[in-house]
């Protein structure tokens, strides 16, 4: 009897001892992103997380860096395995394929309590799938031309204003034996290869999806892709987006076509290179751009975690944090957050916001392509690599690509 009572006492004490920490257990929100270490925007994320945690004691946000090239595949594995992150950050081009799998939570009811519908740009409509809004746009952008002013002056070329002037400037600034190139662009298998080609096509005023059909054999598209192909001749081979940016920041290339988020990295360029690095709009008649990245909730997570994650997204969308986001150099979606004083302090913000305002979406808007974006991108990348690594005529490569797309990604 005495022994039994002693054991009961021990069990009771153990239960109380375990219950105490459980009662104060922290909720941790998993937040994988490719921007956790990206210069500029990573500071914004970390400050936002610190402010959110201060406002929500008992909730911790675990931000995790995942390289961009592997990001979508890793998220695919997580969702397929039934272990999605709590805060879902996606390249917007891949949003539709995730939404099509039923992986994302509809947000219409939650959004009613916010001013996002009234203050976000028209690109927010890209977050809609099957009649339900399933994301909040975090950045819509216009493509930016980064250039090394000293290299242009040394080669006696002016800032280009047309694609032909740009190609001529690339040629004039290329001296491959000395490791100097006119352009840094993606010349290896990489998810952004499609963006590089699409920038030339959309920028020239053409479109490879027209009237709900593939349009790769249009002479205007062929001409634009020829321009891209020529530009690749002035770039080092085998580079991905990270290497291309690094080459520009190191002062080895004259031009880089990329998004405004690169400005954070440019500000960290070596002291002897930094004063020469500038930005301008792309020398195309149409500014290519689009929805860059967005925030979502996973459909199959704990309800409390969903609420906590939504609070985080709302905080990111608030006027204060949107203003701070704009100051990183990327255009914030919330209208009117950039002031004249901000532009006075950071003149590049004017270019970034002007280009974002007039950009035309370079990502496909046809539903069948959006739902199968990976297949579309894989085939386009394959054709692009064929054009980089062989002498096959552009028209034939694009005709073959169209035939392959019509078979593998039919348009419904």
């Amino acid at each position: 009897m005495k022994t039994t009572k002693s054991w009961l006492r021990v069990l009771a004490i153990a239960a109380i001892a375990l219950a105490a920490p459980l009662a104060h257990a922290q909720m941790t929100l998993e937040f994988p992103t490719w921007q956790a270490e990206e210069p500029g925007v990573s500071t914004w994320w970390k400050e936002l997380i610190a402010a959110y945690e201060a406002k929500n004691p008992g909730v911790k946000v675990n931000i995790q860096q995942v390289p961009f090239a592997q990001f979508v595949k890793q998220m695919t594995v997580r969702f397929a395995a039934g272990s999605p992150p709590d805060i879902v950050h996606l390249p917007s081009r891949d949003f539709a394929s995730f939404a099509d799998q039923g992986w994302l939570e509809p947000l219409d009811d939650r959004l009613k309590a916010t001013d996002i519908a009234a203050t976000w740009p028209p690109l927010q409509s890209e977050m809609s799938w099957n009649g339900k809004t399933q994301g909040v746009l975090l950045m819509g952008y216009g493509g930016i031309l980064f250039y090394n002013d000293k290299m242009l002056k040394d080669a006696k070329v002016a800032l280009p204003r047309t694609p032909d002037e740009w190609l001529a400037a690339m040629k004039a600034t290329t001296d491959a034996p000395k490791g100097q190139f006119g352009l840094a662009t993606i010349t290896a298998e990489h998810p952004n290869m499609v963006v590089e080609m699409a920038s030339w096509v959309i920028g020239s005023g053409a479109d490879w999806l027209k009237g709900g059909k593939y349009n790769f054999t249009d002479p205007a598209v062929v001409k634009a892709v020829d321009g891209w192909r020529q530009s690749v001749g002035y770039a080092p081979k085998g580079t991905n987006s990270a290497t291309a940016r690094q080459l520009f920041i190191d002062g080895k290339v004259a031009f880089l076509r990329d998004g405004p988020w690169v400005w954070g990295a440019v500000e960290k360029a070596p002291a002897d290179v930094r004063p020469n690095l500038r930005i301008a709009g792309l020398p195309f008649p149409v500014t290519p751009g689009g929805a860059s990245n967005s925030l979502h909730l996973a459909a199959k997570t704990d309800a409390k975690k969903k609420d906590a994650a939504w609070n985080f997204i709302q905080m990111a969308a608030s006027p204060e944090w949107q203003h701070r986001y704009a100051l990183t150099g990327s255009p914030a979606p919330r209208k009117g957050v950039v002031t004249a004083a901000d532009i006075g302090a950071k003149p590049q913000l004017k270019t970034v916001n002007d280009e974002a305002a007039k950009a035309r979406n370079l990502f496909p808007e046809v539903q069948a392509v959006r739902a199968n974006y990976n297949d579309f991108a894989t085939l386009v990348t394959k054709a692009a690599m064929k054009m980089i690594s062989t002498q096959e005529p552009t028209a034939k490569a694009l005709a073959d690509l169209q035939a392959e797309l019509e078979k593998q990604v039919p348009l419904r």
Partner: protein
Amino acid sequence: MAKRSLKAAERRLAWLLLMPAFAAVALLVAWPIYVVVQMSVRPGRSLALDQLMSQPLGLANYDRVLHQSTTWAAFLHSGVYTVGTLVPAFLFGLLAALLFNRAFPARRWLRSLLLLPWAVPGVIVSITFLWMLDASYGVVNSVLRRLGLLATDLAWFVDADTAMLAVIVPTVWKSFPFFTITILAALQAIPGELYEAAKVDGARAWQQFRFVTWPGVKRPAMLAVLLNALWTFREFDIIYASTGGGPAGATETLGILVYREAFGSFRFGTAAAIGVLMLATATVLVLVSMRRLKDEFR
């Protein structure tokens, strides 16, 4: 009677002691193979595994896989990659083993250095060779140009004509130490008297190798070739980290194709079907090789 019941008891004990091993094999080998085969006969595009497993049975995945040109191209690339890696890796391994079987200064610590390529993760090997073979800034192009062997820089990983060679080279570098270690162990088991006797009989170096060395290392060498062939056939990390299967599919082996089908195109069933075909190919390879190995080990 007592003897029979003792033998039966011993048999029961033997089975009992083998049970944990069987359970481990069942859990770690048989169950995953069963799941993969199940997925391969469930046509459907869902990435939710529970939804995929509830699809009706069908062979549409195999039909798709066997009729798409990328599958056969991947088979060809896998064959070229495997043979292209095995032959030089074996030859380098054999030469290194013959060298390290001799006595020379610092032999011991050089032997330890030799193991390093085998220990380096495949991704690190890829990154290293990506830089060494870089088209614009790589040391290999620079040296070849200075030696007059190249007029312009070669884009090793980006040119469809050189990409396969560019992924084979790091794989050979990583693989040959395994052959060296295996063959060296066999070399050291060959009695020195056999070489002395051969010398007395007037055998030259090549004859000593053919009639003394090779018979002594043949069996472990064949086993090493088989194991390495299986590893190389399913190799993924070196190719994926360096070319991703490109350019334009030039280095897309079956392992890369499986990954692309599953995580690029969201077709787990098709990826599983390719996986089953890889398993079948490897099984045939092992069965054919085992007959030959059995003869050798008799």
